[in-house]
Structures are given as structure tokens and as C-alpha cells.
């Protein structure tokens, strides 16, 4: 600056610098977004949203594994005793507290996404310390309501959106 004593006031040039920088940054962001968003699920992936299944053949105490959005969904027809245990254990010290009643639409049918909430493996049925599922990957135990009881998984098995279309058909998604 030629005059050192003069206080530095914003000049027309400062204004130009700032406006240019702002326009430049906005432009860069506008170009960056499509490049990032293309990584998100495309239309064909998002479209595969619901499946219908016949559940009439599942016996009491039996279960079915079906694919939904590339992930397994467990549909389990629980016995009277299992339902009783699940409800009684509402009062246990649960890592992710939730009542059994809030996890089912019909007590007899438990519908959960069969993906361990730890790092995504598929838990094995009728294994583990709590009569539900056991995930072999890092040792998470789930109970007969699909609630996490022991191990590194932080939350209960997810309940997908579903509805009973009629007595025999369930629609997931």
C-alpha cells in the first residue's frame, strides 16, 4: 500500500476478489454434487421395494427367510412359550429397551430384517444364549423377539415395514 498511515478500507478490488471466490466456490459445489450423488442408489435399486410371500406353510416354531432389498428377512411363527418368554423378558436389563409388543403386529409372527446390527452378517436361528439368534461374526446374541442381549451389536434387529395382506400372505416393504 502506498499510504501506510491510512487505515485499510475495503476497496473495489477486495469486493471483486470476494465475489469471484464466492462464485467460484458455488460453481465448484454445483459440479461436485452430481459427482457425489451419482454414488447414491440409482432408480433401479430404489425401485425394488416390496415383496409378497405366502406364510401359510410355516409351522409353529418354524421360520422362513426371504430376500428383500438384497437382504434377508426372517419371518418366524412363534410358539406360545416363546411369546411368553419374550414378554416376560421385557423387564430384563435390555441394551436397547423395547417391549415385545412394540415389535410385532401379531404376537404369533415376528418379522425382522435378518441383518446383524453390528456389521451386517446374517445371524443363525436357534443359536446363542437367549433362544433367538446368534451372529457368528463377532458374537452377538439376540432373543426370541430379535432384541440384542449380549455382544457388540448396538441395537435390536430391525423390524421392516410390513402388513398382512390376508391370512396367508404377508407383504414386506
Amino acid at each position, binding site marked *: 500500500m502506498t499510504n501506510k498511515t491510512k487505515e485499510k478500507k475495503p476497496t473495489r478490488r477486495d469486493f471483486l476478489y470476494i465475489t469471484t471466490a464466492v462464485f467460484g466456490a458455488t460453481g465448484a459445489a454445483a459440479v461436485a454434487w452430481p459427482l*457425489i450423488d451419482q*454414488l*447414491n*442408489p*440409482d432408480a433401479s*435399486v430404489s425401485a425394488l421395494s416390496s415383496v409378497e410371500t405366502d406364510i401359510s406353510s410355516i409351522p409353529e416354531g418354524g421360520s422362513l*427367510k426371504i*430376500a428383500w*432389498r*438384497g*437382504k*434377508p428377512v426372517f419371518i418366524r411363527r412363534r410358539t406360545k412359550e416363546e411369546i411368553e418368554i419374550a414378554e416376560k423378558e421385557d423387564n430384563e436389563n435390555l441394551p436397547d429397551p423395547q417391549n415385545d409388543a412394540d415389535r410385532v403386529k401379531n404376537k404369533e409372527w415376528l418379522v425382522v430384517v435378518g*441383518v446383524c446390527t*453390528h*456389521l*451386517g*452378517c*446374517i445371524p*443363525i436361528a436357534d443359536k446363542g444364549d437367549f433362544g433367538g439368534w446368534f451372529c*457368528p*461374526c*463377532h*458374537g452377538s446374541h439376540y432373543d426370541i423377539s430379535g432384541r440384542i442381549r449380549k*455382544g*457388540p*451389536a*448396538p441395537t435390536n434387529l430391525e423390524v421392516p415395514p410390513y402388513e398382512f395382506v390376508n391370512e396367508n400372505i404377508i407383504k414386506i416393504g
Partner: protein
Amino acid sequence: MNHDYEYTPGNAFTKWLDKRLPLIRFADENLLSFPTPRNLNYFWTFGFILTLCLVTQIITGIVLAMHYTPHVLMAFDSIEHIMRDVNYGWLIRYIHANGASMFFLAVFIHMFRGLYYGSYKEPREILWILGVVIFLLMIITAFMGYVLVWGQMSFWGATVITNLVGAIPLVGESILTLLLGGFSVDNPTLNRFFSLHYLLPFVIFGVVILHIWALHVTGNNNPTGISVKNTNDTISFHPYYTVKDLFAYVVFLLMFAYFIFYNPNILGHPDNYIEADAMVTPAHIVPEWYLLPFYAILRAVPDKLMGVLLMFGSIVVLFFLPWLDTMKVKSARYRPTYKIFYFTFLLTCFLLGYLGGQAPEGLYLFLSRVCTIYYFAFFLVVMPILSRYEKPSPMPIGISNSAINTDLGTDKNPALSINN
């Protein structure tokens, strides 16, 4: 570095070239007459070996990519096609698959070398940090390469590892979906991993150039950790170290060849010869051997987020080494106490590797926890404390001067003479 030798172009063409693009001068100064400490041992040959490992992966990888199909319906079959139909496809694939293991073997030795001789210390901080960056990129590259095979281990390894991102609070799930391009590992994931697996080795190549540039600014460390003082301490890179490096590489190749020709699948997991199935998790998921120690740390913690943080932390902590260990004496040769902790650390890493392959229960889990604690304590507790209190043993004044430096040491006089 002090050069008392300078490149002089010999003929009319090299003189002409030297004025326009001093390519030969550059090669000469950096590869041929580069002054190198005279006392480097075989642990210093791994840099050269690593460079050739990278070149090997790039060449075989480009060839594999000519025959491979990155689509979930065809990927697994195209690997078998490479193995059975493509001329020498089996050889090229076995070189690439075992080459990744050899690459990691070499990089581990290279890093433990640096840890032992204090190569990360002033003035080589940037050199070290660039090394850690390369290591991180190697892990990501190898992980993505393993997914390309689209076997059961590929698929479930990819599922477990990408899910780590989901542990990040709030934004984790969205980032995970962004990473996968779907709600689970699927075709979009395979496609982008292929694209990145092709790209990253070239990024690594770029960082390697920076790494070597930084090396050539500070010069090599050496087994004594004492700085080079004059030209008595150095010899020219060529022919002394070109020969030594090549010899070491040939020995390394012999081992490499054993795996390729006699035991090509021993380092891999048999389940990866089963095609990926999104509906069945194998009973026992393990990553490739070189990632087992990190996997053990991940599973040592009963909390998802903490496990993930510790696993990444175990690599991130390496970035801070130059500021955690501030002891002026570089080489563990003259640090009797550090040496004990160092070898305990080495053992811990082996043990973690073993534990990473076992089920996370009972004694295994307990040991994983003990080892994880020691892993971090070594860097965060032992290093800073030793930097303050450890008394180094007597050391020579210079690389080629056997007199004892009495400033640092006691009056004991072990035989420390090196050369002359």
C-alpha cells in the same frame, strides 16, 4: 547431502539434452551417485523390494482387468475363466493374489525397521507420514481387490468392513448407502470397487514418488541412527546398494515363487472359492492375514463405535510417532529399555494377528483386550515416558568413527567399533 561429485554429460547429445531436460542428471543424482550411509543392513533393502512389488501388482493387475468382468452375475465366473481359459491366466492371477501378500509382508518389515531404528524422527517426519499414507492406501486397495473375486469371503468381508462406516453417529447410515450405492453390497458396489481398485495403485505410485523425494532431501537413516557427517560415512548408491538391493530382491522372489508355484492358495481362504451368496453368512469370517491384527482390535471391544474408532486409531496413531517419541537417540541399538518394549510390541502384533483369526470368545477375547491395550500403551505411554527417562547406552561418535560419545553414555566400554 554433500556432493563432491557432479554429473558431467559425456557426449554432444547428452550435453544438448542436459540443457533442455536434465533427465540423466536427475537419474544420476538420485539413483546412481546418491550418497548413502556405508553401514546399511538388509533391512534397508525393503524399500526397493516394495517398489518392485507395486510395479508387479500394476502390471499383473492391468492384464487381469483385460479378462475380468465387474458384474455380480459374471465376476466369479470370469475369475474362473482367467484361471482355466486365459493363457497363463492362472500364473498372472496367482502372482497378483500372492503379490498382495508379499507386498504387505515387505511393508510390515519396512515399517518395523523404521520403528526399531527411529527412522521417523526429526528430520524424517514427513517421510514417515507419507509412508503411513501409502500403507493406508494399500489397505484400501487390497480390500477392494479382494472384493472383486466375488466369493463368499469377498462379499461378507465387504459387508462387514463397509458397515464399519455405519458406526459413525448421525451421518453413518447415509454415508454407508453412498459408499455401497444401495442398501447392501451389490452390483453398484462391485463396479465402483473395480474402478477404485484400478485407480488407487496409481495414486500410491504418486505418493511413493513424494516418499522417495522426501528421502532424498534428508538422506537415509542408518542402523546407528547417527547422522552422516562427511563423505567418509557414505558410499554411492550404485553399484554398492543396487547390487545389495537386487540380491535381496532375488531372495525375496524365491520365497514369492514358492507361494506362486507350490502353495498358491495357502494364504487365501477356501470359502472364497464359493460364489457370493447374500443370504448365507459363512460360519467364520476372516479377512486376509495382513489385516488380522486390526480385525482383532476391532473385535476386542464390545461396543460398535469404540471398536471402529480403536481400529482406525491403531493406524492413525502412527502419524503422531515423531511427536510421541522425542528421544534424541534414534536407534534402538543404544536404547536398552526401548528395545525390550519394542520386541514386546512386535510380539503383541503377531499375537493380535493370531487372535484376529480366532473366535472372539473366552481366553481369545481376553488376550485380544490385553494386546489392544499394550498396542496403544506402547505408543501413548511407553514412548513419551522413555523419551524423558531412558538412559541411552554409549554410542560411537560417527558412522565410521568408533570413538565413544561420552556425552550420552556411561563409561562402560562395550565393543562398538564399526569399520576402520
